[in-house]
């Protein structure tokens, strides 16, 4: 006989840990299934070695092998391995109409509605604006480039306490400075009685007499099941879609939109090779994010830009000069000349139409189809144009990563189980409740319908707080 809970939550990242705490505080008996293991500061390493990272990340590629996707795979999910930048989505984001003429966000969700939930997240995670003395030289130089052409650059917001600026945020913070969910929501949830089962991979959801049954494999690969009156799917954009797709034979009324609308938060990564004669920016020093965000292009181009510090590996494995070889003696010498003194890596972010897809392959495992469509090509070209102008005005050289033929790493995946007002074009309603299945919710990045305009974690977290409150109030 399967154990029974008021709520079973699949995933312990922002979309899972937050509802877990709030439901437990409301007196509900909650179980969280997490595929990853428990990692603490003592377990993390200052290393970008794939062998180490594969312990804390799920790494997969698109089905054309052109793109890497990274997602957190540990208790705390993406919060363990994210850069930490936690800005709120600008108001206009929620009015985004995609290339098909569809206003993707539900009418009930906008910045004003989310603000109280942003407040809750920021309070829990000690999010604050960086001081200028915490902005790395990379960030300072990026601000200077913008200032040189009369544009602004703001300090971004982070959940850091006593950060040492070591540059390994995304490998897991060994100093405990990054206030991941392991520092706040999860211990509070445990104290409130939430049971966390790690090393457990949810395989399928089936209807049950009072709610749903979740079948999962444990650390020993045996199949078990639990029942929940409420089930919340929060396994991340790829794996939430995988779980629902695999559940389709039993949940026959699931939307055919499950797995569709995959997008990368409109991220276009680029580098700027600074002109000769400027002081060294020592680009490996500082938080993984360089501490700054510019909104200068938001009004005219619908994008923000986050500058980042860069380890040698991220630079050399992803970037080279257009029209020149990304290997060989010339490349080696060029990379040596540029790094670490005159290189800025940055991400463009903005709402974008989701044209990718997560589907189950012939092995019943998730594959990601993320083609460089005409729309995406147009998006990239239009958004990179002002950056080219910025580089030119500063006698700098724009280093573009996409589309360049190089493998491209993405960790801002969104949209595969999106909320929406149109049942034909969304998986869940505006409260995150999956259509035709009362009590079955989605509350993670997969529910976010389009790019958030900034790094998405804060909006994912605030939306999870909002959905949790809806569940507490109505269930």
């Amino acid at each position, binding site marked *: 006989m399967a154990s029974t809970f008021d709520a079973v939550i699949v995933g312990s990242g922002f979309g899972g840990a937050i509802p877990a705490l709030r439901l437990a505080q409301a007196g509900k008996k909650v179980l969280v299934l997490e595929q990853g293991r428990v990692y603490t500061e003592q377990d993390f*390493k*200052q290393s*970008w*070695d*794939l062998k180490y990272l*594969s312990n804390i990340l799920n790494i*997969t*590629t698109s*089905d054309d*092998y052109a793109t890497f996707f990274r997602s957190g795979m540990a208790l705390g999910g993406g919060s363990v391995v994210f850069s930490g930048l936690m*800005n*709120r989505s600008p*108001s206009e984001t929620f009015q985004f109409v995609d290339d098909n003429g569809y206003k993707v966000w539900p009418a009930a969700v906008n910045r004003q509605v989310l603000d109280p939930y942003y407040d809750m997240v920021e309070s829990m995670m000690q999010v604050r*604006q*960086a001081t*200028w*003395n915490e*902005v790395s*030289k990379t960030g*300072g*130089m990026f*601000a*200077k480039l*913008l*200032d*040189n052409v009369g544009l*602004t650059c*703001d300090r971004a*917001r982070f959940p850091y306490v006593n950060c*040492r*600026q*070591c540059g390994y945020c995304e490998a897991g913070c060994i100093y405990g400075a990054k206030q991941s969910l392991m520092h706040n929501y999860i211990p509070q949830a445990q104290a409130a009685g939430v049971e966390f089962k790690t090393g457990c991979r949810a395989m399928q959801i089936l209807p049950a007499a009072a709610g749903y049954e979740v079948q999962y494999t444990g650390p020993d690969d045996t199949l078990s099941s639990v029942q929940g009156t409420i089930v919340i799917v929060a396994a991340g954009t790829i794996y939430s879609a995988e779980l629902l797709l695999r559940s389709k034979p039993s949940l026959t009324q699931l939307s055919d939109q499950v797995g569709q609308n995959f997008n990368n938060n409109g991220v276009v990564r680029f580098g700027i090779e600074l002109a000769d004669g400027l002081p060294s920016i020592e680009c*490996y*020093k*500082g938080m993984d994010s360089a501490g700054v965000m510019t*909104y200068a292009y*938001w009004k005219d181009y619908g994008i923000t830009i986050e500058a980042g510090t860069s*380890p*040698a*590996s991220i630079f*050399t*494995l992803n970037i080279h000069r257009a029209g020149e*070889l*990304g*290997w*060989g*003696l010339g*490349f*080696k*010498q060029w990379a*040596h000349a540029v790094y*670490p*003194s005159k290189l800025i890596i940055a991400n463009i972010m903005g709402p974008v139409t989701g044209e990718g897809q997560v589907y189950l*392959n*012939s*092995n019943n495992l998730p*594959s990601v189809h993320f083609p460089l469509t005409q729309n995406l090509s147009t998006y990239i070209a239009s958004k990179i144009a002002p950056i080219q102008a910025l580089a030119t005005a500063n006698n700098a050289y724009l280093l573009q990563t996409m589309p360049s*033929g*190089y*493998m491209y790493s993405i960790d801002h995946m969104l949209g595969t189980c999106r909320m929406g007002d149109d049942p034909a074009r969304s998986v869940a309603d505006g409260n995150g409740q999956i259509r035709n299945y009362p009590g079955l919710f989605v509350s993670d990045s997969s529910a976010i319908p389009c790019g958030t305009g900034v790094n998405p974690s804060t909006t994912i977290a605030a939306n999870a707080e909002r959905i949790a409150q809806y569940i507490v109030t109505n269930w």
Partner: protein
Amino acid sequence: MDMTKLLDDVVKRELNRREFFKWIAQASVVVSLFGLMDQISCGTVPKTGVPASPYMVPQTADEKTVYALCDTVLPGRTSDPGGAPGAVDVGTMDFAYDKFYGVVQELPLVLPLFNAEAQNQFGKPLYELDLAQRTAVLKSSETMLGLIDQIYMFLKGPFYIGIISTLGLEYMGDPGPNLGYRNQDFSFYKPMSNEMTSDGNLP
């Protein structure tokens, strides 16, 4: 990773020679990359017959070709006119034959392409050519190989990530693991910056 689909595509397509090599390369790299994941996840890496580190000296023709590939993608001390280290100086061969053993198991399917191109252009196998000749062969082979960027990433990784040796990171000026830079001057260009918002959030 949908290997079944990939292999089905390989089988079903009517392949000319160029396409054949392209698909073989794709298959071998993908099998290898995700073979690594399996090896990591179960904590074992096949080592049978793998020479001991550091660092592997190529013996067979295939090993010499892999070595030549490494030394073309990131030329090492003996090839770089400035004597700077490269892929073969940081254990990339060991990395390939140990951690990525799956790659070299499959590489014999790909290596003939490079050697055939080398024979075609210079009348010798790749590993008997100098750096300029090897570079020319690799450039002309690029168009015939699928996933060539992934092969480059694979061969560049040990140098720039510092997987076996930190020599590459030292060459690049990246100190790697550290105690932090909290005492550095992080007020760089502060006076130059103007802000649009009061708290970092756009309304």
